[in-house]
Structures are given as structure tokens and as C-alpha cells.
């Protein structure tokens, strides 16, 4: 039974349709990630969900109640902002205690004190409770902001790219810590990020936002292996998926791919019609070797660079097409760039996209 339902949400600014016909069903306790490039409307969407901005059209339903007309303070939703939004004239303690001191709650000072200390301890910031925001490091500000958003145990917590403004090293630590902390609060989490690795590491499901709506809502693995379109495929994976125009022709158990004269055979079945399309293949799905393997094609070596403890090779086909191939460090040591090089595509890993709409043809 879905806890949070977003039905046909729309929001425009003058002629700019930022969000149009956005739909999603989120389960209780789910870690739901909204992933999209900058400018895709993530911030607007969060503002619509939290009530700071009003919808043009559509309905937001929480626990079977339509909450469109509810003021932000009436919705049981809290938010941790990307730039922390801590109250500069209050100490960290009072920032965190703020939700508990709101009017509609009758909590004694002792209870407030106990709860603040509990959350602070969980997020490892007890030692800075008496400091003002300007005295805290970015990492500490982020944790204070999180503490504030979680302390009242809201039903839904919105996290707006919380790790964006935090140093690279601390970001990784928090990426491991966050899910554990959030589990303690048993809340439904909507997490917005621009980093696909973060999305894949943290999300139960990822909703890919661009063109004003969610184009894929699926588990990380499904989105990576079965993207709905080339746009989605390009957003996940570093280096980005190779993609090029080609003509495909089915031949028994093979698919022949013709790239401007160069031909490569894929041993796989498909329902896609013969004809022109865009072929996509991820760098890690290309096999590189010094020997001509089955269904391989010769290529020219250009450069190689390290990336995330893998090695990325830039190779070029005879017709000028450049492709990126990535291997592990160990595998790369078996390749001699001074000898001839051949590539072949891993059997089931190629994708076919429509030339115009860019949609996945399978």
C-alpha cells in the first residue's frame, strides 16, 4: 500500500513547464531517491512536496489524505536543505530543538533536552551543541541540519542533496552512515541527488527526473541495466555509455551492427526491427584484447587514463569513431598498447535506442 502518492503534478513558471504530469507511488519506510541533472526541477519538486510552493495541478496524497492545501507547518514532512539553512542567531542546540518547540506540541523542557542529546549523539555532534552555526564546519552543519529534520520523527523526510556541499572525503563516510541513522527513525525518506553513485548506493528505488517528469522509477540495478531511454543511460555510469548511430540486421542468432562500413557481430537475440538506430554499449561491457577474439573488430589505441581504480582506454575504429573501454587495473596490465588491439561487445549488454525519440527499443 503506497504511503505517498504523487498524481499528475504540474508546475510552470510563465512559459517554462518545470514539472508536468509527474507521477509516483512511494511506500512507507522506503528510501526513495530522486535523481536528475541540475536544472531538472528537483528543488521545485521538493518545494511542492513540502508545501512551500503551491501546485498548479495534480494531487499529493499522504496516508490516503490529499495534502495539497496544507501549509508547510501542517504537513508531517520535514526537510534538510542543501545549504543547511541553520538559524544563525541560535546555537546548534536550539536549531535542533526548534521542531519540538513548535506550538502544537506540548513537550517539557526536560524531554526536549533528552531528545536533542539523543539525536546529537546519534549524529556525533554532542560536542558542538553549544556553538553557533558560523563556528561549525560544513560537515557539522550538515549533521545539525539532519538532526533538526529528524528529531520530531516526521512521517516523511526530504533530503535535498545533503552531501553536495561537504568535502569529498566526508561525503563517502556519510554515505555509509546516513542509511543506518535514518533506519533508526523509521521514516520514509525522499533523497535528492545529482550523483548517480550516491543514488545507486542509497536508493531502494530511483526516480530519474528530466523533462519535467519521472522517466524511470526502478531499482538501481534495473535502471542501470535496462534504462528506458538513452538519456537515462547516459546519466548513470562513469565514463558515460558509448553511443553511436548504426544499422542493425538480424542474422540467425546474431545481430549484425553496421557502423558506417565497419561491422561488428553481437551474439544475441532481440525483438527490435532491422534498420537504423542508436547502439549503446557501456565501457565496462567492451572486451579488450591483443588477439582477435570471436566477433571482434580491430581498433587503434589512443590514450589510457586511470579512473576510480579502473583504467579507461580510448580507442578508435577505422572509420574514426572513438570508444571508451574500461578495465580493472589487473586486466589492463595484460594489454599491450603497442600491439594490435581488438574489441568485442559482451553478449547481452548492448542496447538499442530509437534514433529520434531516444527511447529504449527493447
Amino acid at each position, binding site marked *: 500500500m503506497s504511503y505517498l502518492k504523487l498524481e499528475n503534478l504540474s508546475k510552470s513558471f510563465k512559459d517554462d513547464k518545470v514539472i508536468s504530469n509527474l507521477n509516483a507511488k512511494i511506500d512507507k519506510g522506503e528510501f526513495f531517491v530522486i535523481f536528475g*541533472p*541540475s*536544472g531538472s526541477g528537483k528543488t521545485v519538486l521538493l518545494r511542492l512536496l513540502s508545501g512551500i510552493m503551491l501546485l498548479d495541478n495534480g494531487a499529493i496524497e499522504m496516508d490516503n489524505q490529499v495534502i495539497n492545501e496544507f501549509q508547510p507547518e501542517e504537513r508531517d514532512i520535514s526537510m534538510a536543505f542543501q545549504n543547511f539553512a541553520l538559524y544563525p542567531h541560535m546555537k546548534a542546540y536550539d536549531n535542533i530543538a526548534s521542531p519540538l518547540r513548535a506550538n502544537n506540541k506540548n513537550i517539557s523542557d526536560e524531554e526536549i533536552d533528552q531528545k536533542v542529546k539523543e539525536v546529537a549523539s546519534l549524529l556525533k555532534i554532542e560536542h558542538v551543541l553549544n556553538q553557533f552555526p558560523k563556528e561549525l*564546519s*560544513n560537515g557539522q552543519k550538515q549533521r545539525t541540519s539532519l538532526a533538526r529534520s529528524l528529531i520530531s520523527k516526521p512521517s516523511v523526510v526530504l533530503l535535498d542533496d545533503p552531501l553536495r556541499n561537504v*568535502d*569529498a*572525503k*566526508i561525503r*563517502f*563516510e556519510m554515505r*555509509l552512515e546516513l*542509511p543506518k541513522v535514518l533506519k533508526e527513525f523509521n521514516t520514509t525518506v525522499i533523497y535528492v541527488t*545529482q*550523483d*548517480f*553513485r550516491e543514488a*545507486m*548506493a542509497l536508493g531502494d528505488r530511483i526516480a530519474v527526473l528530466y523533462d519535467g517528469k519521472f522517466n524511470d522509477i526502478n531499482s*538501481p*540495478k534495473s535502471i*542501470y541495466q535496462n534504462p528506458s531511454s538513452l538519456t537515462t543511460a*547516459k*546519466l*548513470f*555510469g*562513469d*565514463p*558515460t555509455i558509448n553511443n553511436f548511430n548504426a544499422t542493425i540486421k538480424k542474422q540467425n542468432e546474431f545481430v549484425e551492427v553496421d557502423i558506417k562500413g565497419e561491422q561488428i557481430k553481437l551474439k544475441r537475440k532481440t525483438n527490435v526491427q532491422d534498420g537504423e538506430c542508436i547502439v549503446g554499449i*557501456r*565501457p*565496462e561491457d567492451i572486451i579488450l584484447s591483443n588477439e582477435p577474439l570471436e566477433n571482434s573488430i580491430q581498433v587503434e589505441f589512443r*590514450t589510457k*587514463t*586511470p*579512473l*576510480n*581504480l*579502473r583504467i*579507461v582506454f*580510448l580507442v578508435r575504429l577505422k572509420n574514426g569513431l572513438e570508444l571508451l573501454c*574500461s578495465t*580493472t*587495473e589487473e586486466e589492463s596490465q595484460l594489454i599491450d598498447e603497442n600491439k594490435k588491439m581488438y574489441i568485442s561487445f559482451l553478449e547481452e549488454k548492448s542496447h538499442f535506442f530509437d534514433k529520434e525519440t531516444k527511447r529504449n527499443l527493447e
Partner: protein
Amino acid sequence: MAKVVLESLNKVFTSKIGKDVKAVNNFNLILDDGEILALLGSSGCGKTTTLRMIAGFETASSGQIKIGERLVNDLKPAERNVAMAFEGYALYPPLTVKDNIAFSLMREKISKEKVDSKVMEVAELLEITDILDRYPPSISGGQQQRVSLARALVRDSDALLLDEPMSQLEPQLRAVLRARVKDYIQHNKKTVIFVTHDQTEAVALADKIAVMENGDLKQLASPYEISAKPSNVFVASFIGEPPMNILKAKINTVEEKLKFEILNDENEKTFSIKFNKDNIKKENLAKLANDQLITLGIRPHKIFFNEKESNFDGKASSSSYHWLGDQVHIGIEINGSSIIGVADRDFEPSSDVKLNFPAESINIFDLETEEVILNGL
């Protein structure tokens, strides 16, 4: 392009109230003509202050800065012949993107065609050809950053200084643009010093990396050496994503096998890693004393899964599993100690995880000084 030499460079920010701040301590560096250096560290470590001293926006408290053969300490920034891309972009609002990039070239006596072709070259490199006629306030932050970078790249100067040049770039573009920029820099044989807090960027672009913390230079070496042979715990844990696993351990040399007893925060033993003494070099073994407490580091990528036999005693179970497309990150608990491992994307851990810690990937550091004792057994 020229060689850059920093000798005993110091910067102290004096303060009338409170303590003086030692921003940069005794920094020594020789960067050859055409080399790329990364100043890497977290916020406040002194990397930007160092860069600004080289540029001339901060005066050194003591020490020498030489660009080429010239001692530049007393020269104004304009006189040092360096090009700089600032963290805040500092684009000229009333000029178009194209004019912003071409601005610095106007001082050099080259023809208009040459200026245009140089501008187009960098614009294509950084994929900003479609915004050449726009004005800075109307383009996005990531685009502004690319324009700022283009403006610095296009100039002919003795040295090129970049302050966090790619921090705001869209993640999808980063890998591609990095490769192209590196290619351009190497092709034009530029001497480049750039500041970053992103170790992936440093490793991808630089010939040498200077890791800084609290004003001190922690290690100056090639990316490979910094990754494989870190000289202290700070550098070891700063480089690499996921970061190196850092564990406290007690050495046991008296038993038949060499044992590292891994301790938790309360100094209780959790599990032990064992090695055959015959497989370890004698001179390395000599550096280890029995009952010595040390810091042990092993990179997540160097932990091998799917082994038939583990070389530790204790039961390992997986606590988290992040599938990231081309690799998986696995959180492992062994008797209360947690480590992270990286495995092939098809790997799925069973309830009883078998893993191996290869001897050549074990790094030993002194517990107090945090300096390295051994990079690999």
C-alpha cells in the same frame, strides 16, 4: 612555460586578538617545466593560500618563490606572467563569453584570426561553443566555471594556476572534460598547478600530487606512488574511493605464522590476519616487533573475494551491499570490526564471506607518529 620552485615557503596570518594562524608551513617543491601538480587537501589545509602566494595575491611570510629563473616574491601578480582561473570564476559581466576568453589574448600581439581560432579551440574542448555570444549572468554555474577555465587555458604564460577548476561541473561531463583538458595541457606543454579537494580529480589529471593538511605538506609524489606507497595515515586515507580501511592492530611474530590481531575501539581483539613467514621478505619482517601496536591499512580494491580459503580467523558477514554498475562496494563485519571491500559487479556475497588480504597490499603505519613503516609485506 617554466619551472616553478618553492623553497621553505611559509605563511602566517597574524591576528591582534587570539592566536596567529600558520596557514602554510615550510613548503618545499620543485615542479619541472611542463609538469602538472595537484595541491590536494580538505578545506583550510593551506592549498589555496599556497596557490595565491605563487600568483602574488598573498605575500609570503618567508621563503622563496621562483618562476622560471626569476625570484618573484616582490613582483605584483601582473608582473609574474601567470594565468589563473579563480574559484569564484571572476568573469567580466559586460563582456560576452567569447570576449571574456579572448580578453587576455588581446594583450599579446597576435592577429585577430589567431585569437579567434584559439578561442574556438578551447571552446570546443570545453563544450561551450553554443554560449559564446551569451553574457556571464545568463549562464549556469557549471558553464561559468568552464568559461573561467577556458580563459586561463588559452593564455600563453609561464605557469597556469587553477583554483578548484572543475568542482561545479555536471558529473556527466567531468570524466570527458578532464581527459580533454589533460590532453590539451600536455599537448601545449603547460606547467600547471591546480588546487582541489577531490582526490579523483587529482589522480586523473596530475603528474605529481602534493597532499596538504593544516599547512603541512604530507606527501609529494606521483599518483601511483601516493596510492600504492602512502607515507602516512592521512595520505593513505585521503586518497581512494572508497577510502583505505584503517585498523588498529597488534603484531604477533612469535607464532608459526605472522599474525596481525585487529583491535576495536576498546582495544579488544576482533579477528586476526595470518601470513606465512616464508612469503615475507626478511628485511620487512625485521621491521615488525612482537606485541607492537600499529595502524594497518588495506585498500578496499585489494581485498580479494571468492577465495577458497580466507587468511584470517573469524566469521565475516556482509553488512551492506552497494551495486554501482561497474563494481560493487561491500561492507563487511568481522567479529565487530567493519571494513569495506570492492568486488566485481557480478559478485554477490553469501552469508559466509570468504576473503583474502594479500600480503603485498598490507600497509603498516606507526601508531603514534602515523608515519609509514611498510608499504606491503
